[in-house]
């Protein structure tokens, strides 16, 4: 498929620390993103979402983090075979990232405008002055007056800082934007504004989006395709319609059960009981088995592969869901 902008195959990332042991944060994850497509990556805190994002950019924290298997192909070229210098050209210019916490993502001692122009100046062959002018434009674009170019992060509120971070990420018109919980740290009203703005800018620039979130509402609004991740593994992947209307995996169902629903009259939420397994000590078999109400003998022994349950790309990692479909 020539339109595949990013293709992650079999990616595994571990964190090794002397005290805790080996954390298997990401396990054999495969994902494709097409040009112009919005892919949502959904999971609980600690499921390995951010680690995947950092893995794509080869920014896995050193020295504890290491990529143990897999490839990340960008337009068919393996990013892990590139030199550091080539990688630097890709970061920011081709693939850029919006980080989770706008409070800490900006350098406190640099004016926000300079932080944006740093990005532009690094990737475009223009003078610093031109870069500054472009950065001022970017600020205006995200709704911050260019007059505030010289101001410092501490002079901005959280929502404004997130706008700065977004302006920075979009400054070089990247082909792929990775947005890691771009709205989690924000108030609900600001959330909507920011999402709206991202959508607008995305359309304008033709960027593909990998949206990392634990908020299914945001996914419904923004994404074409969704991948549900649990304990470092993808458990269900499909179009937004598949996931929302034809939910297969018990975990995904659980996620929806944890949401209050205005339309139904059921009296209580159905939370998923228990906790996600410790990534340093993952259970054998299906990772979700200890919390699953349908768990069988087989689930605790052996894990199902990601298996298609419909011809148009709906995949599930669950024995029961696949059997219901009559497959295997």
């Amino acid at each position: 498929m020539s339109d595949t902008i990013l293709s992650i195959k079999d990616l595994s990332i571990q964190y090794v620390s002397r005290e805790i042991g080996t954390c298997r944060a990401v396990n054999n994850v495969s994902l494709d993103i097409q040009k112009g497509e919005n892919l949502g990556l959904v999971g609980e805190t600690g499921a390995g979402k951010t680690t995947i994002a950092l893995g794509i950019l080869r920014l896995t924290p050193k020295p504890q983090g290491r990529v143990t298997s897999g490839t990340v192909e960008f337009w068919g070229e393996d990013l892990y075979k590139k030199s550091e210098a080539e990688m630097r050209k890709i970061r920011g210019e081709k693939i850029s990232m919006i980080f989770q916490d706008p409070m800490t993502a900006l350098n406190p001692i640099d004016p926000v405008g300079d932080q944006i122009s740093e990005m532009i100046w690094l990737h475009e062959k223009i003078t610093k002055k031109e870069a500054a002018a472009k950065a001022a434009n970017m600020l205006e674009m995200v709704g911050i007056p260019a007059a505030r170019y010289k101001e410092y992060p501490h002079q901005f509120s959280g929502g404004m800082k997130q706008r700065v971070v977004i302006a920075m990420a979009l400054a070089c018109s990247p082909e792929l934007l990775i947005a890691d919980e771009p709205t989690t740290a924000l108030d609900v009203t600001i959330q909507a504004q920011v999402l709206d703005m991202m959508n607008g800018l995305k359309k304008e620039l033709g960027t593909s989006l990998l949206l990392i979130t634990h908020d299914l509402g945001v996914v419904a609004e923004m994404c074409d395709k969704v991948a549900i991740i649990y304990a470092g593994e993808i458990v269900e992947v499909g179009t937004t319609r598949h996931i929302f209307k034809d939910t297969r995996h018990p975990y995904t169902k659980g996620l929806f059960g944890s949401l209050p629903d205005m339309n139904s009259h059921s009296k209580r939420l159905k939370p998923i009981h228990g906790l996600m397994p410790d990534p340093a000590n993952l259970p054998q078999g299906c990772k979700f088995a200890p919390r699953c109400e349908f768990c069988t003998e087989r689930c605790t022994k052996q894990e199902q592969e990601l298996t298609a349950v419909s011809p148009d790309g709906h995949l599930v990692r669950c024995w029961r869901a696949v059997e219901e479909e009559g497959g295997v």
Partner: protein
Amino acid sequence: MKTAEQQDTAIHEIKKRSMTGEVLSRLVRNKGAVIGFIIILIVVVACVLAPVIAPYHYDDQDISRKFLEPCADFIMGTDNLGRDIFSRLLYGGRISLQVGFIATGISALFGITLGAISGYYGGKIDNVIMRVLDIFMAIPNLLLAIAISASLGTGIASAMIAVGVSSIPQFARIVRGPILSVKGQEYIEAATAIDASDMRIIFRHLLPNVLSPIIVQITLGVANSIIAAASLSFLGLGVQPPQPEWGAMLSASRVYIVDHSYMVTFPGLAIALLVISLNLFGDGLRDAMDPRLKD
């Protein structure tokens, strides 16, 4: 579901282990801290048992055997008056340890009290206490210790007070900051609401929050006090000959540095060894008590 059960028991066990146990187990895993602790223990025991262990009395002079290089009878040699340096070091260690611990005790007692009062009451009281401490902080530490010991005259007690008083501000500072920030939290308000007395709030609710920095500061404070006291006697203040304080021994022997360098080597080594072990232990303690601070 066996795995879930296992997980539950694991969580249960983690909860059961007390905070102290957790700190201790981390401390024991830190090699530096363990080595430091063992050396401190050996030094303390050796110094306490000095009258038993020491082959000679610390003031046992005999000019006929002066300036003997280290040998079987005098493992660290003898000094200009023929006194056994090893014995003098053992007795001297008693003084250094005493000064170190008591001086730190003085600064901890006053510093913690002042810092707690300052942080808890705030306002005018805080202002007055902090301004007074500012004055003390404007004088470099050693200079302050020198000035105080100059006015108190020579002697062990004078050295203890001089060194102790000069580090009061450090303790006050580490206590005041956290108390100031904890004070506004709900559980303190709750304690005030049920009419707990100020003393009870300070001791039961506020000070425990600063316990780990205080303990660490005390360990490192003992190390610093030992060096400061040695510096004082090195300058001819504080502990005086013939008392075998380590700094005083160094000071007295530096005249002979050219021909009898061992006289300078051993007292210095003694100070360095004791202080290194205190610092190793203090560092280990800090890492164990607050893993976040660990690099």
